[in-house]
């Protein structure tokens, strides 16, 4: 329980810090870079090394590459939905989560990632 409380607080602080940095930066497309900042990774990988060792963190970072590529595709799809389909931000970002998950799992399977 304490572990998950620590994860929650550390994750919340790191994510908020990157989000605030994104808020104050202009132009908006540059600030958008911080929407894909390694905030969750920074909070998680340190705990992973402490609890399970370096090899575990290496496995996680290999899988994270698939997640990052899926995030790039996700962001492009969201951008298209907002501009061409004229969806609002909330439905566009939530619906496209399915695309992120499908691409991420597909890439992980292609790379032969063990579960």
């Amino acid at each position, binding site marked *: 329980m304490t572990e*998950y409380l620590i994860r929650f607080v550390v994750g919340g602080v790191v994510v908020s810090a990157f989000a605030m940095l994104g808020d104050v930066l202009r132009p908006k497309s540059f600030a958008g870079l911080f929407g894909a900042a390694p905030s969750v990774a920074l909070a998680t990988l340190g705990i992973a090394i402490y609890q399970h060792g370096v090899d575990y963190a290496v496995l996680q970072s290999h899988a994270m590459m698939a997640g990052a590529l899926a995030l790039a595709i996700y962001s492009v799809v969201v951008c298209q939905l907002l501009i061409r389909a004229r969806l609002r931000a909330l439905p566009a970002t939530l619906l496209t989560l399915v695309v992120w998950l499908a691409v991420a799992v597909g890439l992980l399977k292609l790379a032969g990632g063990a579960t």
Partner: protein
Amino acid sequence: MTPIRISPSSLREGRWYEYLVRFALGGAATVLAGLISSYFGASVGGLFLALPAIFCASATLIESHEIRRKREAGFSGARRGQQAAALDAAGAALGALGLLAFALMFSVLVTTSIVGAFLGASAAWLVVAVAAWMVRRKTRLVRRNTGSAEQRGPALPRSR
């Protein structure tokens, strides 16, 4: 001249509960990544280190801020809000390339130095993301200039 600038006044546009939502979402995403790693293993859990949960919140906030600003000026602001969120998404796509570099650099460096891995990977994210953004910006500027030059016609009048 650098096109990147800092606008601290933007922080005043946010409401206190918006910051609370982002804190909670960030915490929840980190807990989720930990839970999934415990139940499904390190590989599946690793995918969730690049979960776009925070992006969902950021894009929605940007849209609502833009709509609020336009409404205060007497406009609907819905289209402007979508465009602002789309710009944020375009930036996030480039940031994701930086995230790929982060993961690659971390996996290479962590076996030799843990602190070095965090520093090197963070630097790789920043360099790749900013470089990708600058390349995109330059490409768009060149394309825009070429387009307007074609509309204007040849720079030098043809001799008859």
